[in-house]
């Protein structure tokens, strides 16, 4: 108990609190700028932490990353431009709400459920970090292969409309993920001798192109007419939140659980968590037909999920120094520099520091609510501009964001190409979401399959030999076979009748 008190006391100092506040504001700004990811936000903080005390340094990283992941939802809702990859799964849903005049409701839901998701992930971290890290460490490429395949199954549930068109989109995404040399064989594929293509297709410019640039092109093609909707003000946030909280609590809990579980796994992070949660939400919804039309249900589940994943990623990072995502990879370096070497001994030798870190987590997620509301108000003001002025601003953000990823014009070219692709796809009613999912999961799927085959000397049955892998495998096969079987049965019954 003393350690807990000591830990809280370590945080309740003006310099720590002030650092956390400043880092939060910084994270909010960086996350809201498309193309700048949460990982980049904290990498920018690293040189500053060299000259800080250990606790403010770690506090700054926690606060900054939590805010950045939430802030990614802001441009995603207002401009159809995911601020971070973790927002991509529900970008269309949020934007559809904006088109209905409900931008503030969508963002309000994002603020509240991001914060709650983060808190939930933190409690799991506090309660069971050492135990769960043990489980996560047992995941090998065999398990990740099934997870990636399960993730692809999400495409079945997220893609509205024709399954064939959804499949075309998914395959296109998987193809895009193949470009470059960063594949298990280390062989250049589809690079045509270009050094830039050797590095592959960057996910962020592709995403900005597919979502935001395509919308810019479409608006230009239709003459940038203003929307005939008035944005409703959220009114009293507490009242709106109360209703959502009561109505959608199962979705929220499910999102929290999925997010934390995926976040803990070192090979999967907040972006995959958001996709899985969005698909789950739709699959088990009582009103799946409303998804994609600006329905808050799926947003709640996936926004809870990506912030819960963020805390989950700290589990293997603190216990074994194995990064749970790219953000904790940066954090581990800082922990070493500050003499807080990650490992089970950190919990034994330095419990007050661990409790201080937990306190910061809780504080940062609580802080997200007022800061988020401020950002929301500032952001939605953007929508009052006429479309013919707003669209060039969005175009500018597209260019800056895709340039910033790698500081090269190559990103801008990619973004433009994908903008045209996205425009053409949507003109032909081919959904974009499965394509983005394919880009996200393509590498994981291929890597886990090829490395598993090398380990097992080509024996396919190895995918069922390990207990967790076998269970996941059976589940995956069930998910794929079930819809086929049930439709066949329905057909037979119809014939019998």
């Amino acid at each position, binding site marked *: 108990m003393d350690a807990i008190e000591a830990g809280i006391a370590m945080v309740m100092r003006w310099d720590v609190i002030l650092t956390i506040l400043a880092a939060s504001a910084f994270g909010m700004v960086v996350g809201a700028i498309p193309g700048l990811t949460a990982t980049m936000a904290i990498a920018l903080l690293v040189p500053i932490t060299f000259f800080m005390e250990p606790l403010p340094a770690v506090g700054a990283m926690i606060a900054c990353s939590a805010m950045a992941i939430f802030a990614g939802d802001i441009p995603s809702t207002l401009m159809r431009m995911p601020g971070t990859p973790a927002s991509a799964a529900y970008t269309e849903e949020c934007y559809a709400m904006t088109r209905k005049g409900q931008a503030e409701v969508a963002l309000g839901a994002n603020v509240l459920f991001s914060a709650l998701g983060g808190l939930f992930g933190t409690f799991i971290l506090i309660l069971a970090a050492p135990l769960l890290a043990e489980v996560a*460490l047992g995941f090998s490429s065999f398990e990740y292969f099934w997870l990636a395949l399960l993730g692809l199954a999400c495409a079945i549930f997220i893609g509205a409309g024709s399954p064939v068109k959804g499949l075309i989109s998914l395959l296109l995404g998987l193809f895009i993920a193949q470009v470059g040399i960063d594949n298990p064989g*280390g062989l250049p594929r589809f690079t045509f001798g270009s*050094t830039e293509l*050797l590095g*592959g297709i960057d996910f962020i410019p592709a995403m900005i192109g597919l979502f935001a640039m395509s919308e810019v092109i479409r608006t230009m093609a239709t003459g940038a007419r203003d929307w005939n909707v008035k944005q409703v003000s959220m009114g009293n946030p507490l009242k709106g939140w109360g209703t959502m909280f009561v109505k959608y609590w199962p979705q929220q809990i499910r999102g929290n659980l999925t997010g934390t579980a995926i976040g803990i796994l070192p090979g999967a992070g907040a972006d995959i968590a958001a996709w899985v949660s969005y698909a789950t939400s739709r699959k088990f919804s009582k009103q799946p037909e409303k998804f994609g039309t600006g329905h808050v249900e799926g947003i709640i589940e996936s926004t809870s999920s990506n912030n819960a994943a963020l805390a989950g990623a700290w589990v293997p990072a603190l216990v*074994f120094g*194995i990064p749970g995502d790219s953000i904790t990879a940066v954090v581990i370096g800082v922990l070493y520099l500050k003499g807080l070497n990650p490992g*089970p001994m950190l919990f034994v030798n330095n419990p007050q520091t661990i409790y201080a870190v937990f306190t910061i987590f809780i504080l940062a997620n609580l802080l997200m609510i007022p800061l988020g509301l401020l950002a929301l108000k500032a952001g939605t003001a953007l929508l009052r501009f006429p479309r013919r002025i707003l669209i060039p601003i969005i175009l500018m953000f597209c260019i800056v964001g895709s340039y910033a990823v790698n500081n090269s014009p190559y990103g801008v070219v990619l973004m433009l190409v994908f903008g045209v692709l996205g425009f053409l796809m949507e003109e032909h009613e081919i959904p974009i979401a499965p394509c983005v999912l394919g880009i996200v999961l393509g590498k994981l799927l291929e890597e886990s399959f090829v*490395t598993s085959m090398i*380990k097992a000397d080509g024996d396919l049955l190895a995918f069922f030999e390990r207990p967790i892998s076998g269970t996941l495998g059976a589940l995956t096969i069930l998910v794929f076979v079930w819809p086929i079987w049930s439709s066949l049965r329905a057909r037979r019954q119809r014939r019998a009748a």
Partner: protein
Amino acid sequence: MRRLLAAGLALAFSALAAPASAAGYPDRPITMIVPWGAGGGTDAVARIVASLLERDLGQPVAVVNRTGGQGVVGHQAIADATPDGYTLGLITVEIAMMHWAGLTPLTPASYTPLALMNEDPAGVQVRTDAPYKTAQELLDDIKKNPGKFKASGTGQGGIWHLALAGMLSSLKMDPASVPWVPSNGAAPGLQDLVAGGVQVVTCSLPEARSLIDAGRVKSLAIMSPERSKLMPNIPTLKEATGSDWAIGAWRGVAAPKGLPADVSTKLQAALKKVYESKEYQDFLSGRGFGGKYADGPGFGAFMAAADASLGKVMKEVGLAK
């Protein structure tokens, strides 16, 4: 209007073409390109070097990550920049490997070397519960069961892959007797080691440190002539097996080829000061990184030697084109 534009362009070009001189150097911000992602060890080295260089030169030094293509993209960007001292880069051991694998025409000679900043030798890591006490016992078992053990730690043909293949080759064993499982760096490889997916990981000690400290992984030997400062109880490969094979990942600062001599001198002096600073030394010991310094010509000679020896081994083990 058009004339104005032309004049503007001419002015811009003349500014670009003006010969860089050390007289006022540096009078604007400097960019440091890192060919690897934010958050990795190379990125961390670049960021501390940049912040210390900034203090010494009095101009901001911005770190820019140009990732992808197993380092080719970033190394290319450094070599292609204008050699005026305003674009530097942190080049890594891969520059002495990639051209042998046929990935790029770039070699260490494509740069103006400025300073070697760090080197970490490869280690031989197995699970703590593995039945081997020494590297020799492991190697004997590999000899008896070729193909049974799998190793990981980096991508196909990466530095740790070469470390393993070179070690086996130096002991007159078939480099293919331990198939390589490509991974996205040391951390996923080590996690797979603990998960039971692979049996050996040949990454550096600082990378394996957290799992060694946690009692999950043990290191049997390091591929260096001297023992490590971080874990002095781990024998060298020579002590454990008699092999002279030594290999490590190194990082150094370089500029594009053709950097004016006065700018180069100024940067070398600044980088030497950075290396000797308390902050940099604290950073190295904090992260467990190995320090190794050489000035510009020394770094050039070091790279040329590394290039020749890595090329020889890559040909031997079949990783060269």
